[in-house]
């Protein structure tokens, strides 16, 4: 268990909520507005969101990719999504989203027995 739940993810995605409300995404179920503050929507669109977040700084194996034009390692702290003025998404947040997806996208912690 990654210990990451919808409230954590909602906070991470919050900066993109307004902008992405204008965006529609087609899937195998139908076409949906990318409401990043809605659990069911994020769950439904998680593959596309994951690919979009991941593509910029990782290779197909999921490793941070190699070097910039000067041969230096690409700084993995920064991420181009979402746009200014709120600044880039931290790679830790990208990792948290991926861990949440891999954990089955739990909405809430399991009830304590």
């Amino acid at each position, binding site marked *: 268990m990654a210990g990451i739940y919808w409230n954590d993810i909602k906070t991470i995605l919050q900066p993109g909520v307004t902008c992405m409300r204008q*965006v529609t995404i087609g899937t195998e179920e*139908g076409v949906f507005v990318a409401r990043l503050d809605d659990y069911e929507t994020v769950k439904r669109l998680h593959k596309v969101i994951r690919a979009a977040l991941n*593509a910029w700084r990782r290779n*197909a194996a999921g490793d941070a990719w190699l070097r*910039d034009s000067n*041969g230096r390692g690409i700084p993995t702290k920064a991420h181009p999504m979402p*746009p200014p003025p709120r600044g880039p998404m931290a790679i830790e947040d990208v990792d948290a989203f991926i861990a949440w997806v891999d954990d089955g996208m739990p909405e809430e912690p399991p009830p304590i027995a």
Partner: protein
Amino acid sequence: MQIGHPLRCERPITTRALVSTILFVVILLNFVGAEAAVLKRKNIDDLTVPELEAYEHAIQILMDRSAKDPYDKTGYTWQAWVHNCPFIWRPRNPTSSRFNGQNCDRIWRRPGPGYDESHPGVCEHGKDLFLPWHRAQFYYFEKLLQSTDPDGTETDSRGKTGPSTKEVTVPYWNWTTAPSGDRYPKALERADSPLNHDRRIKGPLTLFEQIMLAQVTNPLAIAEKIYNADWQRFGGYRQEDSVGGYGDFEDIHHNPMHAEYFGLDMRSPSTAALDPGFFQFHAYIDLLYEFWLQEHGPNAVTSKTHFLRADQPDSVAPPPGHVRGAGLPSMGQVEIYFDTAKLGYEYEVQPKDRLPTRNDVLRALAGPAGTPVRFGETGRSAFARLTGNGLFNPASGPATMIDTVDVEIPNSVGGRNSIVVKLSRGHGPDLSYLADVYLYPTSTTFDPASKDIRDRYVVRSGGYWGRGGAMSHGGAGTPSKPYVADISSSVGDLIATGHVGEEWQVTVVISGHPPTPGFVTVSVEIN
């Protein structure tokens, strides 16, 4: 418990029932036959005068509708928005709109209580939905054109009545052949035609443009992809894939045509379909998609059950097999758009519009020994032989950016996309650019003005089609991925010819009509 088929008829068949059934089948067949009428899409230069007049009349009626109400889904502006406009505040009373009729309004706050959220549509690019989505868009557009004035009795705003639009189809422009007009087909350049458009580059191609665009319009390069490319290489990668994006056709041919040949409104997906020439340009791309499907069949096409986003008018009957899907209205799934006859059209292809043959392609790729060349072994790479040596023209001024990355040739290479050059923008407007990629030994001094260097070492040349100055980080639709140039095949040739362990360099030259992005991060990824 009842067992058996609930719809099975257990009653004996009477003569009256039999006659009724036969009559019903005959009527049904007539109806289906009428629905299934297959019309020809022709080269726009081959249209008869009445055919061209009918097409222009239909386009003008769509434009007239939009002049009265830009939010009319059966009007030209809305149909352009199906391609251009992911979001708009739609006024319940169109006459109260405070917007310029053709602008796709992307403001975030509701302008007032009388406005509703609306999602006309947004084109699919940089993924495997590119070709199917545009085919679906054209299905609805063509049906709308046919319904504008089927009786030929309407008078459009030019004062022209008729002719009937019942059999109008979207004509294509074969842009791999010399244009019949100065720069476009004559039909797009006539001053009084609704197909003319102010906001496109006018005038004959300059010498610089001829040299640059020769590789974009090169029929051999396109034919090679249709014969040899699998679906990913031709049509693009799934939107769920982290690596991939454009298929070769889209970034090498489609994108530079938009940005550099047409320019202005066609330079951005946010305005492209405002230019009526968009439809002739893309009708030819649909023909190329059809050529590919005829070669390879639809089985390899990915995302077949994917829904295609757009809000089309209810007055147009969707194609056979259409299901609505959950969420917003859509054009249905990719798989219902494979068979053009079921969509009501097929292509008339005259000899001048046929592709070069496989032998033509083989001859273009052959080196002095008559066999396909390997990268680095001859003075012209396979890309240079088949396509061209790069889109940047040194005589036109400095490049936007030239950047170089070192690469050690590995001892093995995997399949597609195992070695890629990735180009990423940072923050800022999502602007179009051209990118030429060269791979050469460190002992070579790269000179973008040297034809010999370009011919020998070019491995890739294409373009990124940005959403325009107002859009950041991908703007509408799925956020943009990096522009990826696959160089695996060229590196594979170097491995096979004894270059393992050598230090080579990748140089990327960024250029294009301004504005182009000021900074692009270049990286080489070895998977």
